């Protein structure tokens, strides 16, 4: 049951071969069975089963929406009415949201079931899920390794079959990198495609929500249900949502795949490169053409990102002050101390580090040298893509330079940790859609992700390419050893 695709499950539900209650119960049991993965922060079985029963009634009435009755795990960054929404932080460890994020609202309107809230790096700041207040998540493929981050709980949950699909957010690779590490499909749509309303903000000009699923086809279904203009989000884009499933099987012969030399250079693990080259050969066999493209400013994506994202974060996280909600320190003499202690006790080390970087980068006398400089570089990086997409239809490469690293391996070296996102960050800076799909296993048995970047709002093209690989290979169907049944 837990290896079926969303399409298969929804057919079973509509034909009433299976009830949402049974399905939900099944996943709740699996979550409980594999709780050592620490993939979830909150599981409210009663609430989930209530929602499942409501979905079953709707299915019984014969008026289901495409995803009615499907249990979905949500990253704990989406505000969920009546449920703890911790964002992986102590400072929100008592925050029961009084409202729903648009993402949650849209899925609830279809009567999907909220299976639980998944673990994540604190405020989505991390690439290993090790910064969570609720402890690290284990990678189901090898529990001594990290699942990636920040949507590590969502990736691990889908990979281990604890949920048929999950939501995530991606600011610098936070959907794609854990998808790659855990062998699932993770899709970051174009900036503005999915509403950010109700998603706890990390870096507002980079954050974008998207699905983590077992296949590109499932990603298309989940994106279909969640994409679209939201009048509550001024950065949400007011343009029609295409039918993402309509073009999944389209012919790709003659289409051009750009390969930036910068994505195949120093630092790329040989095994990872091998797997990616095999996938590229598959596309060639399908009639697509491979060509070299140049993204000259790629190397500077990480430094650029580590100015912009912390700057925005330092401001976004100022609202966590212990006044209106969330954690407040016990002992204080005055207001200033209340603020400073609340925030010092409420935030973890990585979050503080980034608040400090951002505060410094925006401060008087340094703004031009850091923030403005980074924004100019961001323009150059976006321009690189614009030029590349004049020559090719999609850009491909590895999602990450290596497979999942071991727990604790990079926690003492922030820069080494940051460099893990070297291939993914550029899509956020440019605002482009990008996907990571399982492309094979490395020699150590760990999954490798293929990264596909597309033009603005060309999600259909990316999904088409991803699905075509999945039609001809079965990497996306592989479950981690020990999670097959």
């Amino acid at each position, binding site marked *: 049951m837990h290896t079926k695709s969303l399409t298969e499950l929804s057919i079973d539900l509509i034909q009433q071969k299976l009830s949402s209650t049974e399905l939900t119960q099944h996943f709740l049991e699996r979550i409980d069975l594999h709780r050592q993965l620490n993939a979830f922060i909150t599981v409210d079985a009663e609430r989930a089963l209530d929602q499942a029963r409501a979905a079953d009634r709707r299915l019984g009435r014969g008026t289901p929406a495409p995803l009615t009755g499907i249990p979905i795990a949500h990253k704990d960054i989406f505000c969920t009415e009546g449920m703890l929404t911790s964002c992986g932080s102590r400072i929100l460890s008592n925050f029961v949201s*009084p409202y729903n994020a648009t993402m949650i609202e849209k899925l609830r309107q279809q009567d999907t079931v909220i299976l639980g809230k998944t673990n994540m790096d604190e405020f989505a700041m991390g690439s290993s899920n090790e910064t969570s207040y609720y402890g690290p998540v284990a990678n189901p493929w090898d529990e001594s390794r990290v699942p990636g981050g920040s949507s590590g709980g969502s990736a691990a949950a889908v990979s281990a079959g604890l949920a048929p699909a999950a939501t995530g957010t991606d600011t610098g690779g936070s959907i794609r990198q854990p998808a790659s590490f855990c062998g699932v499909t993770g899709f970051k749509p174009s*900036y*503005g495609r999915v509403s950010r309303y109700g998603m706890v903000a990390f870096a507002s*000009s*980079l954050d974008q929500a998207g699905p983590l699923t077992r296949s590109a086809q499932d990603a298309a279904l989940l994106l279909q249900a969640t994409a679209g203009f939201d*009048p509550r989000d*001024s*950065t949400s*884009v*007011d343009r029609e949502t295409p039918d993402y499933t309509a073009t999944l099987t389209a012919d790709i012969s003659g289409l051009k795949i750009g390969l930036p030399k910068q994505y195949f250079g120093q630092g790329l693990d040989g095994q990872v490169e091998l797997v990616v080259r095999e996938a590229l050969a598959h596309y060639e066999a399908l009639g697509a053409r491979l060509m070299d493209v140049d993204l000259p400013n790629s190397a*500077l994506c*990480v*430094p*650029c990102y580590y*100015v912009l994202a912390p700057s925005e974060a*330092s401001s976004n996280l*100022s609202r966590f*002050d*212990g*006044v*209106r*909600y*969330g954690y*407040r320190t016990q002992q*204080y*003499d*005055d*207001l*200033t*101390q*209340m*603020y*400073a*202690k609340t*925030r*010092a006790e409420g*935030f973890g080390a990585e979050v*503080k*580090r980034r*608040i*400090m*970087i951002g*505060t*410094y980068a925006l*401060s008087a006398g340094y703004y031009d040298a*850091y923030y*403005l*400089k980074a*924004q*100019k570089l*961001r*323009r*150059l990086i*976006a321009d690189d893509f614009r030029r590349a997409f004049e020559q090719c239809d999609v850009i491909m490469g590895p999602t990450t330079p290596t497979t999942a690293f071991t727990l604790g391996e990079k926690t003492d070296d*922030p*820069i080494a940790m*940051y460099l893990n996102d070297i291939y993914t960050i550029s899509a956020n800076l*440019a*605002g482009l859609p990008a996907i990571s799909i399982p492309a094979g296993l490395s020699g150590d048995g760990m999954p490798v992700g293929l990264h596909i970047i597309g033009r*603005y709002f060309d999600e259909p093209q990316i999904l088409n390419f991803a699905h075509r690989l999945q039609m001809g290979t079965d990497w996306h169907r592989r479950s981690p050893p020990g999670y097959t049944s």
Partner: protein
Amino acid sequence: MALDHQTVREIAELAHLELDDSEIDQHADELSRILGFIEQMNQVDTTGVEPLAHPHDGRLRLRDDQVTESDQRASFQRIAPATEAGLYLVPRVIE
């Protein structure tokens, strides 16, 4: 760029983060390394480049001036650390 103890203390004060001396030293060390890494940006000449603040060159959408929200004080204050008479309470602010 190496940050000294005093600068880091000032940043922490601006950010309202209470850090003790050893934490400040640790941050000074880490931030200096990160800033050194960030300064790779200077390899590229960006003279005359227009800064990019938003991924799409969109324009702000303006909404109609309509009251759409109703009173939700009870629900909002249920999760507040300290309230009284409908007010959020904070340590005394001296002006």
